[in-house]
Each structure stands twice: as structure tokens, then as C-alpha cells.
């Protein structure tokens, strides 16, 4: 992009500044250089690409599951293989696809939408990515060496304990959790710091785009939910490897305690996945209905309430464990409350579309698809919150249908919409709209064909996680239908890939703001330069690019000969001080390798924890060791 002097004040030397910015933000060359990238666009892209590969892996596993269940007494997969596949499918989709892809999108979009140059901790960001990647490789190393986990993505003890699942498969699973949680926590911490302290001047809390709100809430949820799963998987791992008794019923440990801790994480996990997706929906609705959101305050409050309530309803996964009735009533009420806060958001979107001028782009198609699917999934969720209904539907295909409606409808459809929406920003080119619409309709049809029959299957008594079923149960036809649907979904996925590849070369060149959208990322060039903005923007309204020209502003005076950003105050985003961002560094990778040696080795020998801690400590010291010369203070 050529810098244009005319839109900037006379006082600045745009050409010199841009030249310096290019130099100070330039990526290092070579393989080693490539491994040292710390810009948020690079790391975000790596997250998104890795996560999409995981989506493909999880999708192939799903097809294998559906093919096995196509007809009664099918012999395609044996029980051992089937259990591995469904466990790997769930684990991949939850831990290695859904959460990381949301994080990748956030890493890419948050600094742009907040109007800053990078996330607050760029090297931590890179470290988080490497941990995630090593977690992926670790689990799939197990899968390809026939030590795939086979006790479900929830790994309830005692089935997952040393007595009933000997071997290393569950240890692989439990340690993979640690990898992804370390990664998720790194991202959450840096996203919170970025949003709290690095927003554009003038972007007070009540001017933050709804997507920023959603990712902020999601990050806080990660901070409080993920420690629980770290604890649960550590319980499991230490019971299995060093002989503790945390969840061993023979020694006073309680398998239900594991379930409590697991679901204290596991339920918020679902919201961790779909709350950012709701943020995508808000961004798409505003941009493509071409109007401000109706009920901004209500939306923000509903999202915050969602975040809180999500921690108060984990027990609805455990109604069948014979809990006291009074507790059940509480968890029924809290589970249904989430329908109100979600409902408010749905109403606001409908009102915005209703009174706007919706432009029927592919992105908006996915939003409409999202509303249809997610509302249905939400209503079956209300059914499952009722204890008597849950006791029938729990652990049947009704639940499988429900959470695929909520997760695919609530997260994957908005994600596809978001991809169509932001693809021009990521790559500089629009995706093909005709193919995009075909992509949407095939996915939508395939999705409903696959998962709607599962409601009926569940009511007709088909439990989850069975690798086969006898004929004559009345399940054959519906299962066949679901399998056909799954293959149609796969066709939709292929259309998406085709469109993506086609658009890389042939897509229409987008320009900075092809949708005439409102938020700051559209002020940057497409794709954005490593430093995002020549001059950081300053804002005076909630929809900065829709504000009259005289209300727009830019920040001058930041050093351009080093990576520097602006720290602003938490509430009002008033400039506070300048902040020197670190440059490229290989240390995150070295540290991640050292930590990985500790984590991966501990599956085989507990002492690796000690050795891993020592070498990781040394790596972290190398990371933080001051570079020569000490950074100039400029003050």
C-alpha cells in the first residue's frame, strides 16, 4: 500500500515513517526466521490454518463414525477402532479445532479492531501457538501409532483409570489437554491485556465493537474454566502414572468428583467456543444489514450474563447420577436462564436485520443459517434442562443432535460466515459469492439431514457411543439418512476448500473496506501490513468508519524505528504511555520445545517433569535475558 500524505496531518513525514515502520516490523528471513515470527497476523494465520487441518481430520473421523453406523451390525469398524475414532473426533473438534480456531481469529482480529499494532505479548503468543501445535502432533502421534485414546473426550474414571485402560493411550490424551490448555491460557491472558490496555484512544468500554466484547468475555471464561480441566486431567494422569488416588473409588477417591471438575470446565467450554461466534454474528449483521446494532447495551449485558451463568449449570450433565432433588431444581432453572440471555441476543439481531437493509452476501447467508439452527439447538437445550426429560434423553442421540445443533449451528456457521466476511481482509481478495452460496446451501441441507434424524433416534432409544446396533430397533432408516447427510456436509466442505483455493488467485481484489463496514480493521490495508496502521487510529464513536470524516483521528508521535504501540486507560481509553513491543524471537519455540520434552516425557517417566522444568526454566531465562543494548528509554 502506498502511503498517502493527503489524509494525514502536515506535521508528519509519512514517507519516512512508513519506511521506518516497514523496516522495524519486517519479518526475519530464512527457516529460522520463519520460526521466529511474532506478528499477530502470522501467528493468527498459523492458528487458523492448523485448526482447519484439524477440522478436516475431525471431519474425516466423523465420516468414519457415520459410515460405521450406516446400517445395523456393520462391520466397517470394530469396537476398538470405533471407540478410538469417536474419542479422537470429540477431542479434536473441542480441543484442537473449535477453541484454537476462535483464538486464531481473535489473535488476527483483536489488534486490528482495537486499532493497535500487535497483541500485548507477541512472544507469548508465538509460544502459545507452538504449544498448541505440539499438542496436535502429540495426540496424532498417538493416533497413528495405534495408541489413540478410546475412553471418550470426557475420559470418565474409573474406565479411564489404570485398571480398565492400561497402556499409554489415555496418558497421551490427558497430556494433550495440558498442551492445549497452556496455549489457550496464554492467548486468553494476552487478549485480555490487549483489549484492556491497548485500545485506540477514545475507544472507551461502551464503544468497543460487540466482537471485542465477546472475545473479552470468552478470555475471562478461559481464565476461570481451564484451570479446572488442567486439574481434572492431572488427577487422571497422576492416578495413572504415579499411583495417587484422587478419583480411584477403591481408595476413597470419587469418580463423580472428576465429573464435577470436568463439567465445571466442560460446560463453560461450550460457551468459550460459541460466545466469540456470537461476536462474529454481531459484526456480520452490523456490516451487512448496514446499520447499527439494535440494543447494544442489552447485547453486552446478555453476553456478560451468559459468561457468568455458564459456570452455574455444569450439573445438568450429571442429572442421571442420582443427585439431591433440590440441587437439580437449581440447575434446571439456571440452565433455562441461559435461554433468556441467548434469546435477547437473537431478538436484537432480528430487530437489526428487520430495520436494516440486509445485503444477502454469503456471510449473511451463514448468519441466517446460524439463527435457524442455533434457535432449534437452544430449544432442545431447554428440553434437556428439564430433569425428567434429560433422564430420558441424556447420553442418547437426542443429545448428540442437540449439541451439534448448538456447536455447528452456533459456532461453525458463524465461523464460515466470518471467514467469508474477513477473507478479503486476510488475503486482499473476496471469495466467490456464487460458490459461497452453493457452499452455504449444501452445508445447511447436509447438516439438517445428518442431525435432525438424530433427535428421533434418541427418543427411540438409541444410546450414544455404541459402535453398532441390532436390526429391528427402528433405527436403520434414520441412521442411513444421517450418514447420507454427513457425506453431503463433506461435499459442502469441499466446496469451501475449492472456493478458498480459487479465490487466492482469482478472487476480486477487495480494497480496504469492500463491505463498507464500520470497525477499525477495515481502515487497514488488505491484507494488513505487519504494523497494521501507518498511524494508529483514534475514535470518537462506536462505529468509527461510519463516523463523519471530521470526527476521525490519528495518533502521531509513536516511535517508528522500533516496534512501539500505545497503552491507554482501561475504561476510557485515554493515552497513558508508549509501549515497546518485542520483535521476532526464536526463544518461544525453544521454550515450547523444552516444555514439550517435559510434558511428553512425563507420560513415560515421571522424572521428565523435573528435567523438563529445569530446561524450560533455562529457556525462559534465555527468553527474558536483556538483549544488548538495553532498550532506549526515549524519555
Amino acid at each position, binding site marked *: 500500500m502506498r502511503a498517502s500524505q493527503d489524509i494525514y496531518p502536515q506535521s508528519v513525514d509519512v514517507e519516512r515513517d512508513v519506511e521506518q515502520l516497514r523496516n522495524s516490523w519486517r519479518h526475519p528471513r530464512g527457516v529460522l526466521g520463519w520460526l521466529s515470527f511474532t506478528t499477530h497476523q502470522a501467528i493468527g494465520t498459523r492458528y487458523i490454518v492448523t485448526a482447519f487441518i484439524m477440522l478436516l481430520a475431525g471431519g474425516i473421523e466423523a465420516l468414519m463414525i457415520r459410515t460405521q453406523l450406516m446400517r445395523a451390525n456393520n462391520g466397517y469398524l470394530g469396537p476398538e477402532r470405533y471407540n478410538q475414532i469417536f474419542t479422537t473426533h470429540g477431542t479434536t473438534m473441542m480441543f484442537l479445532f473449535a477453541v484454537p480456531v476462535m483464538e486464531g481469529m481473535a489473535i488476527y482480529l483483536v489488534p486490528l479492531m482495537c486499532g493497535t499494532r500487535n497483541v*500485548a505479548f507477541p512472544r507469548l503468543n508465538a509460544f502459545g501457538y507452538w504449544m498448541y501445535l505440539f499438542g496436535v502432533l502429540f495426540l496424532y502421534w498417538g493416533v497413528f501409532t495405534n495408541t489413540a485414546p478410546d475412553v471418550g473426550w470426557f475420559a470418565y474414571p474409573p474406565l479411564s483409570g489404570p485398571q480398565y485402560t492400561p497402556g499409554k493411550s489415555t496418558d497421551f490424551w490427558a497430556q494433550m489437554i495440558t498442551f492445549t490448555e497452556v496455549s489457550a491460557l496464554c492467548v486468553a491472558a*494476552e487478549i485480555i491485556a490487549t483489549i484492556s490496555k491497548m485500545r485506540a484512544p477514545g475507544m472507551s468500554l461502551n464503544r468497543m465493537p460487540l466482537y471485542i466484547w465477546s472475545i473479552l468475555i470468552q478470555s475471562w471464561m478461559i481464565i476461570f474454566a481451564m484451570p479446572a480441566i488442567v486439574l481434572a486431567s492431572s488427577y487422571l494422569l497422576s492416578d495413572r502414572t504415579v499411583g495417587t488416588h484422587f478419583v480411584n473409588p477403591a481408595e476413597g477417591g470419587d469418580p463423580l468428583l472428576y465429573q464435577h471438575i470436568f463439567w465445571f470446565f466442560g460446560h463453560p467450554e461450550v460457551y468459550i467456543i460459541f460466545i466469540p461466534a456470537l461476536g462474529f454474528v454481531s459484526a456480520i449483521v452490523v456490516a451487512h444489514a448496514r446499520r447499527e446494532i439494535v440494543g447494544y447495551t442489552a447485547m453486552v449485558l446478555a453476553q456478560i450474563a451468559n459468561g457468568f451463568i455458564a459456570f452455574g449449570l455444569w450439573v445438568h450433565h450429571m442429572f442421571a447420577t442420582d443427585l439431591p432433588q433440590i440441587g437439580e431444581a437449581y440447575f434446571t432453572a439456571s440452565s433455562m436462564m441461559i435461554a433468556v440471555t441467548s434469546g435477547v441476543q437473537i431478538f436484537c439481531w432480528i430487530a437489526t436485520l428487520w430495520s436494516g437493509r440486509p445485503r444477502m452476501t454469503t456471510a449473511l447467508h451463514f448468519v441466517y443459517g446460524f439463527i435457524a439452527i442455533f434457535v432449534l439447538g437452544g430449544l432442545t437445550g431447554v428440553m434437556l434442562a428439564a430433569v425428567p426429560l434429560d433422564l430420558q434423553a441424556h447420553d442418547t442421540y437426542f443429545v448428540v443432535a442437540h449439541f451439534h445443533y448448538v456447536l455447528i449451528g452456533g459456532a461453525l456457521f458463524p465461523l464460515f460466515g466470518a471467514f467469508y466476511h474477513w477473507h478479503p481482509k486476510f488475503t486482499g481478495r473476496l471469495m466467490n459469492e456464487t460458490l459461497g452460496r452453493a457452499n452455504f446451501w449444501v452445508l445447511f441441507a447436509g447438516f439438517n439431514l445428518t442431525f435432525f434424524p438424530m433427535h428421533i433416534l434418541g427418543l427411540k432409544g438409541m444410546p450414544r457411543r455404541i459402535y453398532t446396533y441390532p436390526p429391528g430397533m427402528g433405527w436403520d432408516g434414520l441412521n442411513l439418512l444421517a450418514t447420507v447427510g454427513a457425506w453431503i456436509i463433506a461435499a459442502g466442505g469441499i466446496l469451501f476448500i475449492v472456493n478458498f483455493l480459487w479465490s487466492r488467485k482469482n478472487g476480486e481484489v477487495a480494497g480496504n473496506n469492500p463491505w463498507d463496514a464500520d470497525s477499525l480493521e477495515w481502515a487497514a490495508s488488505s491484507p494488513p501490513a505487519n504494523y497494521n496502521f501507518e498511524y494508529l487510529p483514534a475514535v470518537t464513536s462506536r462505529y468509527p468508519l461510519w463516523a463523519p470524516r471530521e470526527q476521525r483521528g490519528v495518533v*502521531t508521535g509513536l516511535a517508528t524505528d522500533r516496534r512501539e504501540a500505545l497503552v491507554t486507560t482501561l475504561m476510557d481509553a485515554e493515552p497513558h504511555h508508549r509501549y515497546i513491543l518485542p520483535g521476532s524471537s526464536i526463544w518461544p519455540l525453544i521454550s515450547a520445545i523444552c516444555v514439550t520434552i517435559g510434558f511428553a516425557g512425563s507420560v513415560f517417566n515421571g522424572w521428565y517433569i523435573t528435567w523438563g522444568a529445569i530446561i524450560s526454566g533455562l529457556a525462559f531465562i534465555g527468553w527474558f535475558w*536483556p538483549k544488548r543494548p538495553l532498550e532506549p528509554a526515549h524519555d
Partner: protein
Amino acid sequence: MTDVQTIDVGHLKAYDISNQDPLWWGQFMFVFIEGAMFAILIAAYFYTRLRMDVWPPPGDQFPHKLLPTLELIPLILSCAGTYWASEAAKKNSRGGMAGGLTLNIALAAVALWMRIVEWHSLNFNWMTDIQGSYVWAFLGLHTFDYIADLAFTAVLLLLVLIGRCGPKQRLGVHVDSIVWYFLVAIWIPIYVVIYWGPIIVETQQ
């Protein structure tokens, strides 16, 4: 000409050693994460304990309370060293940082020695029974963090002593203090659970 407003930030400081810095927020998140983990672990301890008819499990000695209680003294005092160092970091006083960090490390090391002596005297380990698992988890997790932060503090002290101590490092001294306060503060409930817990919630057959 332009009609765009400008905000010139050239006059602002290039760093700020205070809670306004993103790094401070990052450390604060770390404290939240650790805090959430210990909170869940404590809740899990009581959940498990309430299911048991006899507590502590037969054969487990009651932990001694004298040494762990005495340990609190150097531990809490070490926060003074931390505070001294973190204030000196703001004022860019090398002597203050060196003194504060040295005091911090010395007192923390004394407390650590007392803890390990007491730990060594336990007649059960993590494999013995469920109480053993929990006590060792509390001690292990907290001591691991404790030693890690101590090592990091030692590195900071080294940087201060050899004079490689720019604004980033001084900010490090400042934000590191939050983690130390946290580790001391969270030790108090853990201390109560480990050393007084078996007595407070004791039940005999």
C-alpha cells in the same frame, strides 16, 4: 490539508512501571489462573473429605504444626523485601532493588527450608491414601511455583547486580512482586488445610 484530528503521544513516557502496563495485567492473569486452580483443589479436598467416614485416614499422622506456623514469619516478612524492591524499581534505585530482592530471596529460602524439613517428616506419601494424594498435591504444586518464582527472582537480582537492568527489567522486578504476594497469600489457606484441616474436620470411628 487534512480534516483528521491528531493526537500527539510523543510526549508520553516510553514505559511505565506501574499497574498501567500490559505486563502487569499479564502477571495478574497468571495470578487469577493459579488462584482458580488452588481454589478448585481446596474445594475438591473438602468434597472428598466430606465423603469419608474417618478423617484423616487411619495410619496417617497428624502433621506437626509448630514448624509450618513458624514458617509463616519469614514468609510474610519476605513480602517486605518484595515491596522494597518493587518501589525501588519505580524510582530506578539499583541499591533498593538489590537489597529488596536479596531480603526476599533470603527469607523465602529460610521458609522453604522449614517447609522441606516438615515435609520430610510426614509418614505418608501420595500413594498411601487419598489424604496423602491431596497433601502432596498442595505441597508439590505450591512448592513448584514457589521455587520457579524464586529462581526468576534470583535471575532479576543477578541482572540488577551486574547492571543489565533497563526499564524492561525494572518492570519485571515490579510485576514479579504480584506473583510473590500471591504465592504468600495463597499459602495461608493451604497451610490451614494441610496442617489444621485434619484437626478441624477430624472424625474418628
